[in-house]
């Protein structure tokens, strides 16, 4: 019932904004690449790209989970804390081998997700608050488990996961790519995926249509938790140390940014997997370009903030938190 003035120009602007939201990120990415190469022809070198992919992959994994959660009109602020938790747990169980340790980390990620998801699905707690509580609590828990100092990690399997490349592309990038493909397929082709989208678009209608709303909600948070834990394991492997106090910091902001810039609306109902990949790539490259040209970190941050604003403006979010 707002005072919308419907006129031909308004409809046209609507359509332009919708197009921007859907495809803007790809255009922006192309422009960015052109500018980056123009400024530094070495940008397209394999070694540079390897560096970028190493930094991008954990963020992308988390962003994929975040995109699914946002698709249900929710949000997961606990992803950084889950990374910290994974970093805390891995050194404790690395004695049994890399896979068991990572497995336990993933299990804990799933547990955290089911806790958050249950609060949202059964108790009706708002996602921001539920995951906020988890965020605060889990990071504290992680630091309690780990103590203050960062612990070095020497397990070869874990290190190779974090450091190696296959066919010139880092292993973790392959993992992230696989995750992206699987996520896209699940969203498009499975019952779960379609139900997720419907629930995010109109929850009461989905409920009345007999959709298993609670089950789907819990599942997305579990997926987000697992992906975050996986990202945590990769970060630990790459840096060869487990540092819950500092690893995963700001990851929630980075993930949300990637998702939003990629065109997925915060109001739920539409998940753009390819857009999220492009969004994560875009944010990574912008930071890289600015840093490589010695732009102060502060200005980079301001630029990031402006980009988020613009992406959201273009997606015409209304009202909801």
């Amino acid at each position, binding site marked *: 019932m707002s005072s919308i003035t419907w006129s031909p120009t308004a409809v046209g602007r609507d359509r332009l904004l919708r197009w921007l939201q859907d495809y803007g990120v790809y255009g922006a990415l192309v422009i960015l690449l052109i500018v980056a190469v123009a400024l530094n022809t070495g940008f397209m070198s394999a070694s540079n790209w390897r560096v970028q992919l190493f930094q991008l992959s954990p963020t992308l994994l988390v962003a994929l989970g975040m995109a699914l959660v946002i698709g249900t009109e929710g949000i997961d602020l606990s992803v950084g804390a889950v990374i910290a938790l994974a970093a805390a747990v891995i050194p404790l169980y690395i004695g049994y081998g890399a896979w068991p340790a990572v497995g336990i980390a993933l299990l804990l990620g799933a547990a955290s997700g089911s806790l958050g998801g249950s609060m949202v699905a059964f108790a009706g707690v708002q996602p921001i608050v539920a995951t906020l509580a988890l965020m605060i609590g889990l990071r504290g828990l992680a630091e309690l488990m780990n103590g203050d100092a960062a612990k070095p990690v020497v397990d070869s399997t874990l290190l190779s996961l974090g450091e190696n490349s296959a066919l010139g592309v880092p292993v973790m990038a392959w993992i992230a790519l696989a995750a992206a493909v699987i996520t896209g397929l699940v969203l498009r*082709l499975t019952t779960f995926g*379609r*139900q997720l989208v*419907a629930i995010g678009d*109109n929850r009461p209608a*989905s*409920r009345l*249509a007999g959709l298993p709303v609670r089950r789907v909600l819990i599942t997305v948070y579990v997926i987000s938790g697992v992906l975050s834990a996986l990202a945590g394991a990769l970060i630990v492997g790459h840096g060869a140390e487990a540092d819950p106090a500092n690893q995963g910091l700001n990851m929630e902001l980075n993930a949300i940014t990637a998702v939003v810039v990629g065109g997925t609306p915060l109001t739920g109902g539409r998940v753009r997997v390819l857009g999220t990949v492009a969004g994560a790539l875009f944010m990574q490259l912008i930071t890289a370009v600015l840093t490589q040209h010695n732009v102060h970190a502060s200005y980079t941050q301001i630029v990031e903030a402006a980009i988020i604003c613009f992406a959201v403006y273009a997606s015409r979010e209304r009202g909801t938190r």
Partner: protein
Amino acid sequence: MSATQLPDQGVDAFVLEADGLAKSFAGVHALRGVDFALRAGEVHALVGENGAGKSTLIKVITGVYRPDAGTVRLAGQDRSFRSPLEAQSAGISTIYQEVNLVPLMSVARNLYLGREPRRFGLVDPRAMNRGAAATLERYGVRVDVTRPLHTLGLGAQQMVAIARAVQSQARVVIMDEPTSSLEGREVSTLFSVIRTLREQGIAVVFVSHRLDELYEICDRVTVLRDGAVVHTGALAGLDRLELISLMLGRELSAVRAEGATAFGTASHAAGADARPALRAENLDLRHRLHGVSLDVRAGEVVGLGGLLGAGRSETAKAIIGALPTDGGSVDVDGKRLHRRNPAAAMRAGVVMLAEDRKAEGIIPNLSVRENIVLAALPRMSRAGVLSAEKQDAVVKLFMDRLRIKASSPHQRVSDLSGGNQQKVLLARWLCMNPKVLLLDEPTRGIDVGAKAEVQALIDELAREGLAVLLISSELEELIEGSDRVVVLKDGSVVGHLDGDEVTEERLLHALAAAPSDPARGDQDPDSGSVAAASGSIVAETAAAADSGDEEQKR
């Protein structure tokens, strides 16, 4: 049958005029060259079917929308309001059908929102509470004004909204379906308020589809149809059937013979099955339903009648388990439904078309195809992966059968017209192969053509053996579409109408009579001499209509 005949006033007594108003939304013409004139001190009825343009006209006049063409004049001066606030400050006050107040805030605060009484520059809560209690007392509402608004019944909430709207320096008061949540006594109170306004020279625009009320209180009428004015004039000389036929655009004789809807006149041959397809017993939901029982047989259309707030939607939602109940049971084909949630109900064969298709029906950003198969997704997949062929087959089947007009099955459902959206929702439920279909306002807010199609479809479905529960606020639709009618009032069943008893008169009579009214038992409705003991407007009107008296003054 209006109480007072106004002396003919000159043109300069027009307080509000609209000339050639036009408004379109995305190519749909909601208003077409509408002229409207309101005199000071007159009560002007604004009537028309759903989608005729009544609420658009009001929104344009009150500044919610800006017109594409035309002018609005207030007391002779061209005004174009950019917001409801501006219209309000200029003296046009609006009372909406939905109570547009803030449920979490106290009653007193709601009443004074925006114009709180002050002391030393700060809001004075004591004066506010005192004033609110006193005001509402005059409206016959005695409540604790410090408690949140949502603790009030719908009728009382509406009275608060009315009291608020009337408070300000209004020159024009627009009332959009104000009686939809009011019962007898409250309606009388409202009408006294309206008469007082009229005496003070304030103009009232009264939007309603309750013809009895219109004839009771209004002086003039403007009829809208498909966005244009088809008639303006005094109400006194206009026959009811004439009015209906103007609203519908149907010939008088056709309306008389065929009725006002597309429902067939033959009642459905409900099988003499001993076991009803659906039996609900003693549904209880605190404050909303009290021991509601009903049953529906296969091939039968049972109407659920009642005013707004009577509990019709709640009954339907309780049956499928969308609302948890404090007591009662539901049996489908004789089998008890133990777990009550929408999924379980669907599995048992009971589906519901919700009242508010925007909020509880369509998934707006998904395609027609996806909306249709939404509930049936598990049946269309193997190991979680969806089968495109199965979906396509089902979608084609129903798009053809229901004549859903869309550019393709992949069109976004929010781009479709209301009528087609409703058909998509019907397709969603029909592809579940249900035994029982609960329809809550199936033709609300859709164009005349689609409405006829949906009504005919309901007829057809019943003939094919579906058990249908029909909820509708349009009396003709309810009367003509149902084989039987269960009448609800304030959450309880207060009457049953069967076969020949299903008439508008009987229905209104059942609605008007209080549950404990002893006179109800031994009245003969056909004679029309209904006792005025219940104090309802409708009863008085019926009596007055027969005896030709002036309406009784209170």
